[in-house]
């Protein structure tokens, strides 16, 4: 498929995530939208790695070479970091719920005054 389709699909998913962060007040939903944005970027990285592979094999006509594995390993590391982030973030949300008995992000503006 043309790379533009993948870019536009990933951009649409990313923008849906951005809209979710902006319009929802439940901290868990906001966190899930952040996961959605991470996944859209992962999808774009994989599509670009396959595009890079096709371009590299078009320029050298010999045996197929393994370029483009770097991007897929970056996606792997993004997943690793996302898993660590989710465990800490959910612990913070649970602590917040225990203190204020709500997951409304607007309760967190009490540091302002």
């Amino acid at each position, binding site marked *: *498929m043309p790379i533009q389709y993948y870019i536009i699909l990933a951009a649409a998913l990313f923008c849906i995530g951005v809209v979710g962060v902006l319009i*929802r007040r*439940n901290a868990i939903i906001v966190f899930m939208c952040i996961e959605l944005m991470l996944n859209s970027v992962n999808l774009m990285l994989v599509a*670009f790695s396959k595009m890079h592979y*096709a371009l590299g094999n078009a320029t050298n006509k010999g045996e197929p070479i393994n*370029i*483009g594995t770097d991007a897929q390993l970056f996606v792997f590391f993004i997943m690793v*970091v996302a898993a660590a982030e989710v465990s800490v973030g959910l612990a913070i949300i649970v602590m917040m719920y225990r203190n204020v008995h709500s997951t409304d992000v607007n309760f967190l503006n009490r540091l302002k005054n």
Partner: protein
Amino acid sequence: MIATEILFWFLSALALFSALMVLVSKNPVHSVLWLIVVFFAISGHYILLNAQFLAIVNLIVYAGAIMVLFLFVIMLMNLNNETEPQRNSMIKLAGVVAGCLLLTVMVSAVRSAGEINNSTATMSEGNIGLIENLGKVLFTEYVVPFEISSVLFLSAMVGAVVIGKKE
């Protein structure tokens, strides 16, 4: 129209529809379930791109582990529709408009980019996504970040326990 194109459009429509349903669902449990559908669709895209290792890791890590964690936390808090806080409609409208403008900027930037005009992402060919090639590169060039990520996991585990325990 060949089968991979039909699958591409089907998975894209499924991902976008489910992502929208994550936003509009009032019940947080339904949002989690729709997000799992999004992750399955993205895994389908990875399989179409012949990135089989990432497809399986995406299913195991995201749809398996992270979403179960979300479900447990939501059920622990006993959230439901009545306690769901709502922003006022002006802020909602402003958020939707801002997101649409961001999408417009991105799409117009992609359409005016000349370098990628004839580029295609190869589907169902090339074996760079197989676990053999990825494993070789991971354990030769990227072995230091791999080991550092284990330390990151350990610190995240300790941090989650310290934050989450009752004082």
